[in-house]
């Protein structure tokens, strides 16, 4: 990745917290546009987090299946996008 492109990308990513430095830092949508954080949203909320023991088995099993399906979908999308020739 050319240095100029990485720098531009980094600046874009950081523009939101720079603009909002006077207030409390908030969650993902404040830094990145929603579509850019989907993979992190899926990974954090479906794959991580405190699990309580009480009566959760059915709900979590459902979530596990969805996580697997979404992971497969994101992986497929990543490969399709990655296989496309880059335009200069």
């Amino acid at each position, binding site marked *: 990745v050319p240095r100029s492109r990485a720098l531009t*990308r*980094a600046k874009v*990513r950081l523009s939101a917290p720079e603009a909002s430095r006077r207030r409390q830092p*908030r969650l993902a949508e404040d830094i990145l546009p929603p579509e850019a954080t989907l*993979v992190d949203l899926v990974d954090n909320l479906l794959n991580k987090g*405190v699990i*309580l023991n009480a009566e959760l088995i059915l709900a*979590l099993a459902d*979530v596990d299946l969805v996580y697997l399906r979404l992971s497969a979908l994101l992986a497929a999308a990543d490969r399709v996008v990655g296989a496309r020739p880059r335009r200069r």
Partner: protein
Amino acid sequence: MAGVYVYGIAGRPPAAAVKGIFGRRLRAIEGARLFAIVEPAARAPKPTVARLRAQARVLAALVAAGGDILPSRFGTFVRRPADVKAELLERGPAFRRGLRAVRGCVQISARIALPGGQARARSPQTTGTAFLRSRAAAAGGEHPAVRALDRAGRAFAKQTRVEADRVAPSIVVHHLVPRRYLRRYLEAFAHAAARKGISITLSGPWPPFAFLDAE
């Protein structure tokens, strides 16, 4: 509607009047001087992207109100609130340790495109074994890109976690960053990535999902 949907465990009740993903005001269930942040609910939500985003917004509101929280996994619905209280009493010491470890901090996640993965796509000579070794090294923080970025972030981050992404050919570096250092951390991290020519995608601040060890 006797059940509750659990958003996380906190050291104090929610300071602001925050509404949950079902549109009801959040409340707290207390036990062992800890508070489970919950919303009355009849069932677990369907796991859709819209619901995931809604839950992230609720957590954002809780974190923005200044509270530390050990976030629950999506889908944490409990039929009887008394079971939540029992869980707080039983696992109180572990939850308190977890809250101490993340106090005043948020999680920033950096996805780093793996050179090994890119090389594999371009070069048919690269073996699967070499690729997997590259992934394993990356997961252990041995990848040069990870080392460079970790050095940049370590001055401000309290903890670091490195994961090989199971989905895309990339590594994810999670840093637990004190809020007061957040802007300086982001500047240092972006500067290091640009200087090294590393392609990264930052996201956050998140609640400390990647730093929930014993909880």
